[in-house]
């Protein structure tokens, strides 16, 4: 019998994976803590029969990436297949895991437990070698039941409280702690939504997780614009979780996205950010070209600078909305932070949104994904009437 070790911090998610692997004929052991997982890997009763490791990257005590690096540094684990679960938007982390010797990387938000088991079955070719390393005396693994009682609505409620608290403090240490809590909660929502078949929630939640990770490295970027985006994302996820859609995540090739900005670096920043979210925009420096494109095509999203010579972003938006196919096309206005607060209400009307530059790449990526999903869901609802 093939034996698999799953190191996944969310007990509910781990138990779903466990059940699926057992149904497929695997013997399964689950641990929920990085350090404990690392020691279990070296325990003789397990390591001598271990076939493969399924490793989440975000774990308490020791992260998945560190576990991977540590075991790959040992000759006895050379051949052990290690399947990593990560967030597709955290490209660098996935890349790091690949460099560190992951056998395969799975996108947690879009890989259902069934798909995970099927793909691992087909990827497995040989058993890993194993050897001894005992846990040091006194080692206390984290409580395996911790967090098991958490539900998606419960985690979203906690996330909302974190967002509110973030808005009330300027203490960098408190903000950092709140942000870390938010990252953990979002990670949990991504996992649960993914295994629960809530593709839209899982997709947006994983994008939010990636954005929060960017923000965690740049806490000074926590400003009214980034807080507005976080708050919007939490509300959006709460909304889609109430009405599970069971549809596929949005695919980049199916959308017409247009970036219009007369300034070349800002244009590049917007296009780069959308690429990071898996979206491929058309780019123009001229509002007149943007308008022409809107007259000839159905656009799913427009990202527009506000202050452009000839035709400003607000006027461009009005005209785009008068074209036959684009009366409801959402527009994200890009503006300076000083104009953000005064403009946010006006710009947010009618499905549009505002973002302050300079923005972190995943902030725009996240906004774009939310607007695209919202439009997709609205169309689906309209068709079902």
């Amino acid at each position, binding site marked *: 019998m093939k034996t698999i070790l799953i190191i996944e911090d969310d007990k509910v998610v781990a138990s779903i994976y466990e059940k699926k692997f057992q149904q497929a004929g695997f013997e399964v052991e689950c641990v929920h803590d990085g350090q404990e997982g690392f020691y279990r890997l070296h325990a003789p009763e397990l390591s001598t029969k271990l076939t493969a490791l399924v490793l989440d990257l975000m774990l308490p005590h020791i992260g998945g990436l560190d576990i991977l690096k540590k075991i790959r540094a040992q000759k006895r684990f050379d051949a052990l297949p290690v399947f990593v679960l990560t967030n597709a938007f955290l490209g660098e982390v996935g890349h790091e895991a690949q460099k560190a010797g992951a056998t395969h990387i799975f996108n947690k938000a879009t890989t259902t437990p069934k798909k995970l088991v099927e793909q691992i079955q087909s990827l497995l070719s040989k058993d890993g070698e194993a050897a001894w390393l005992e846990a040091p005396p006194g080692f206390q693994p984290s409580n395996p039941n911790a967090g098991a009682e958490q539900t998606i609505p419960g985690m979203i409620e906690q996330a909302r409280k974190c967002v509110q608290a973030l808005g009330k403090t300027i203490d960098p240490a408190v903000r950092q702690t709140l942000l870390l809590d938010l990252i953990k909660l979002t990670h949990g929502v991504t996992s649960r939504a993914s295994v629960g078949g809530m593709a839209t929630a899982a997709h947006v939640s994983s994008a939010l997780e990636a954005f929060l990770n960017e923000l965690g490295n740049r806490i000074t970027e926590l400003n009214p614009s980034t807080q507005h985006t976080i708050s919007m994302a939490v509300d959006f996820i709460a909304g889609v979780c109430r009405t599970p859609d069971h549809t596929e995540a949005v695919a980049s090739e199916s959308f017409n996205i247009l970036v219009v900005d007369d300034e*070349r*670096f800002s244009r590049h920043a917007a296009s780069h950010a959308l690429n990071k979210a898996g979206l491929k925009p058309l780019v123009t420096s001229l509002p007149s070209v943007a308008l022409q494109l809107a007259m000839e095509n159905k656009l799913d999203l427009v990202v527009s*600078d506000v*202050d452009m010579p000839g035709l400003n972003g607000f006027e461009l938006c009005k005209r785009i909305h008068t074209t036959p196919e684009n009366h409801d096309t959402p527009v994200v206005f890009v503006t*300076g932070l000083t104009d953000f607060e005064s403009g946010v209400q006006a710009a947010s009307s009618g499905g549009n949104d505002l973002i302050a530059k300079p923005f972190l790449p995943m902030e725009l990526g996240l906004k774009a994904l939310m607007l695209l999903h919202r439009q997709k869901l609205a169309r689906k609802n309209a068709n079902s009437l």
Partner: protein
Amino acid sequence: MEAPPVDTIRLLDLTDGDREEMREFVELYLQQTSEQLAGLKAAIEERAAEKIRLLAHTGAGASATCGITSMETLLREMEMCARNKTLNDTPALLERAEIALRRVREFFEDYFEK
């Protein structure tokens, strides 16, 4: 201690850490901003508030995006002056922007030498 004139993480974000691409970005930025400062000089001499506002706005946006914080601050100030049609401070701001741009150039010469 004086703050560095550049937040290099912004540029690293924009170029995914590719040093060659970053160098190209910097060259383009320095060239574009030099031209904008020359344009601003002419606009200030003409006392053309709208022209100053647009040039300063574009320059500030590019500087913010590329993480050239020192230039962004000065150009935003200039944009604000032009928006309020109070142009008396703009020659001094331009002079400070020219000095700041020289510092940015020196910063990157050091940065890429390392």
